[in-house]
């Protein structure tokens, strides 16, 4: 523990004057069109927003847009006709073409969806599958990240992430390429029904 004491003592000796933490303020005007803004931003960053009225409509969209021969995995109880998570080994999902998971809510200003480990099944699934679909209720969209953290509060998740669109890179001459290491495409289904 030598280094720990050394570092902490040195910091204490620095006696840097601390300032009190600021009150966090927001000056957002109240807007009711968060879902619309969410989809607009999501599409700008390479994702896709699709409104569906129920689970049947969602499934129909999936079957129309993804090959039935591909491996479609879902951890959502309302979608029992897709493959459930059958393994505890994260490497087992390498050949998943599309993973469909529930998210908690969306953030209008940046097109991100908040999802925690409880909804993921295995934590590798949102990253290893070739395409990702997240499902949120259309009313579950907050305006900014600050409201997002108010909503998260003290939720005792073990692992959680904001996902905003498909995996991407612009490392080669600033050319945007979707599908760097993770999903090459990302859909957010906004449920309009109950």
């Amino acid at each position, binding site marked *: 523990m030598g280094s720990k004491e050394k570092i902490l003592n040195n910091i204490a000796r620095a006696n840097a*004057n601390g300032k009190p933490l600021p009150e*966090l303020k927001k000056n957002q005007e109240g807007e009711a069109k968060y879902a619309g803004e969410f989809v607009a931003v999501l599409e700008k960053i390479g994702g896709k927003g699709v409104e569906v009225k129920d689970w049947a409509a969602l499934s129909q969209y999936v079957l129309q847009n993804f090959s039935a021969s591909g491996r479609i995995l879902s951890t959502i109880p309302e979608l029992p006709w897709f493959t459930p998570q059958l393994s505890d080994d994260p490497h087992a999902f390498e050949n998943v073409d599309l993973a469909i998971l529930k998210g908690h809510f969306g953030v209008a200003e940046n097109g991100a969806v908040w999802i925690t480990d409880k909804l993921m099944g295995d934590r590798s699934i949102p990253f290893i599958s070739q395409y990702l679909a997240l499902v949120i209720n259309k009313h579950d969209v907050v305006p900014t990240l600050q409201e997002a953290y108010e909503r998260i509060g003290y939720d005792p998740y073990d692992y959680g992430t904001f996902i905003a669109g498909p995996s991407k890179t612009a490392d080669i001459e600033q050319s945007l390429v979707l599908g760097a290491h993770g999903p090459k495409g990302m859909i957010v289904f906004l449920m309009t029904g109950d």
Partner: protein
Amino acid sequence: MGTSQNTGDHAQRSSVFNQDEQRVNWHDKTLWFIREKRDKAAWQIPEWEMLREQASQIKENVLGNLHDYLVQFEQRVLENGVHVHWAATPEEHNAIVYDIIRKKDVRQIVKSKSMLTEECHLNEYLEAHGVDVVDTDLGERIVQLANEPPSHIVLPCIHWKKEEIGELFHQHLGTPAGNSDPQFLTAAARAHLRQRFMTSRIAITGVNFAVAETGEIVVCTNEGNADLGVQLADVHIACMGIEKIIPQRKHLGIFLRLLARSATGQPITTYSSHFKKPRAGQEMHIVLVDNGRSERLKSEDFRNALKCIRCGACMNTCPVYRRSGGHSYHYAIAGPIGSILAPGLDMKKYADLPFASTLCGSCSNVCPVKIDIHDQLYKWRQVLVKNGHVNAGKSLGMKGMATILSNPGIFKWSGALGRTLMKYLPFLINNKFNPWYKHRDMPQPPAQSFNTWYRQNKKQDGK
């Protein structure tokens, strides 16, 4: 990359970069384009300036209470079932990381982007101990294959052209010669790195923010490489500088609104992942590194540099960085922020960096946590001169100027001499031994001094 920027001070290395004018213009434009994207993103947020102010205040609170926040953070981390290590020096950090790897008998690991591990030269250390490290960020992988350090903290291979990357991939990954399509090259890298993700049992990540209140760490990537590495590995090692602490989870709402917009103009990175507890059966370690930070905390003038959240906005806007390239700074963190961080670690080695600036102040204006970067550059210059770390030419020139300006007799005489020389013997001034002339034309000398002109005109006016 044909030319080497491996030796000399900032000016010498910049002159190597400046040999290819078209490349410099391309580099300059690319970075300015990113700066403009940053502006557009910032202007869309009406409360942008308030966010900057709040982020700055939160970071100042952290620096004033770092001892207590670190103690609280460690306690929460341990409660979460995560291991904590403290490293006073880069050597200690590297030894801690290697020890974890050695105990698992692992020879091959994946690592996502971490400027701290660059600062500590972890890759070189591990490779010397027989561990194969694969950087999984595409840009970092490119410079790693080329055996170079990153030239930018957010855009590691911003100095590489796609044709050069095509050639590099042809040599190392076996892609067809002459193919330089970014889409194709990225797909090739994806396939190559997917193999490494699938077989690596240990993943190292950096840390963007560490929350004292909860003991969770947040890692931001666009590629998903940090998450993919960690979720497929048995052991996650997260390496962080002690200044990455923020007090509460809700403060992430401020910093994550600022970070990506300042860095690349994106509203948020694709992934902002909050790691609190490892999954069942997985092991997680956090390594807290000091390396001069607690020393820096003692300095009223330079403490604020520790507020940095590593967005790179100061580099993209800097007229010197854009035209000299990241490698001219010969430190893991280039640009204006690197130029005020590096001399704190080694004043002699990095004495040139605070002079690699026009002091235009653009860096301070875009900084999302309001670090007074250009003021600190100016203050560093004074510290460096006082401590004798400035080369004889520069300090002699300054001393000579001081003598002339404080003595009216010498001032008049030297002015007359200068005008005569520039008029009749211009080659004495317009030559390569005068560093001022290098990229400038000397002005036409005036016919007379202001003093003479004033006396004549006073007479003519009859006053």
